[in-house]
């Protein structure tokens, strides 16, 4: 089930899910989440705007209820950021609080102090955080495969164990994928990452 969070990448995610053979239902009512066996939370644009959309449609609490039932939840881009306690984008805004941590601006400079471009836009490979991706939605993901990012803010999870993968940006580690039990997220856009991204969506659907 795909949550209609009122953001513009909803259809892109739907098309990618259709392509990998998912039976997609777009949920725009809280009650629709009762029957979902998987839930994807897309999101682009400003964090506060995305959260406000969820609250306005009664979907904020419905997502929390869904997550409590321990069924798989995948947040994409700002959808992933919303899993955390909150974001500093345009002042503090609370998130869903399913994962401890804050969303903060990407540092303006790389590790060597040289300024780099913000937003972080483009294709990057995933660096493994922790021992193994076995049993996760990144299982079998090749080290040379790249996925597409576009973001100016980055999640800083409190628990290192929640981080599955980083993207290296001039020596700065940007949180690229997270997981704690049934709560999952990608900062990158699997729906825009070609075959590599479609594979990740397939693995999520198989979980």
């Amino acid at each position, binding site marked *: 089930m795909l949550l209609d969070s009122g953001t513009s990448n909803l259809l892109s995610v739907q*098309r990618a899910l259709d392509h990998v053979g998912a039976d997609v239902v777009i949920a725009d009512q809280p009650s629709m989440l009762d029957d979902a066996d998987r839930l994807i939370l897309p999101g682009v644009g400003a964090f506060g705007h995305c959260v406000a959309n969820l609250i306005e449609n009664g979907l904020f609490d419905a997502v929390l209820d869904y997550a409590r039932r321990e069924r798989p939840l995948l947040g994409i881009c700002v959808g992933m950021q919303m899993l955390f306690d909150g974001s500093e984008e345009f002042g503090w805004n609370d998130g869903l609080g399913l994962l401890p941590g804050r969303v903060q601006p990407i540092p303006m400079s790389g590790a060597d102090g040289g300024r780099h471009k913000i937003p972080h836009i483009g*294709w*990057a490979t995933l660096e493994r955080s922790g021992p193994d991706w076995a049993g996760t939605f990144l299982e079998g993901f090749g080290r040379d495969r790249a996925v597409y990012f*576009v973001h100016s803010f980055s999640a800083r999870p409190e628990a290192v164990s929640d981080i599955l993968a980083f993207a290296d940006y001039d020596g700065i580690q940007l949180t690229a994928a997270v997981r704690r039990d049934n709560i999952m997220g990608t900062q990158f856009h699997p729906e*825009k990452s*070609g075959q590599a*991204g479609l594979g990740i969506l397939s693995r999520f659907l198989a979980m």
Partner: protein
Amino acid sequence: MLSTRIIPCLDVDKGRVVKGVNFVDLVDAGDPVEQARLYDAAGADELCFLDITASHEGRDTIFDVVRRTAEQCFMPVTVGGGVRNLDDIRNLLLAGADKTAINTAAVTNPDFVGAAALKFGSQCIVVAIDAKRVDRDGKTAFEVFTHGGRRETGIEAIGWAQRMAELGAGELLLTSMDRDGTKAGFDLELTRAIADAVPIPVIASGGVGTLDHMVEGVREGHASAVLAASIFHFGTYSIAETKAHMRAAGLEVRLDI
């Protein structure tokens, strides 16, 4: 590490590709969707459609092109040309575009860029700048032009680029009108001046004739991405050749597809 993005650009007029490629296995060489599919399979990192449809009646054809592309290509797609108001952006995003390029409308009303970024997010707002060298009191300056380089605006390009970034543009698509179509290479001085002046990524465009030009655009022009039309369309170089050349020159590129 971020890869340098290689972006083919397709000029689309009333739903048809204007400068077509002679891909041998193309069922319909004039269909932008067919070409998009091939570029996707060839490893293009993004795709840009420039809608050059002049007539009002023909304008809706781009939505169908974007929709059909998005159903088959799971890569970022930018659409420019005739983006004048918030509804234009909304309709393109709903059709499946990831980013919209604003050009003339930004010059006419700079606040439109801010309103668009606020409404849809900076990630989908690209400001296209067409710049040209002009003589100002005996010195060379870069100035913003519109209408395909025909109309002078009197706006100094570097300050303009900074203003667009401040208003919320997520990227700049910078085209040198002096070099466009010449195959003489990017205007590196212009590209570097703008790329160094703004915090956001700059896509270099206009003038690519060789693969070394692509490398120069990044190395010397400090561009984050390179856009080209004719060298890909006319089959002079493939995406794979371009990437192999850039990798050999030491640049990071995405090779898996």
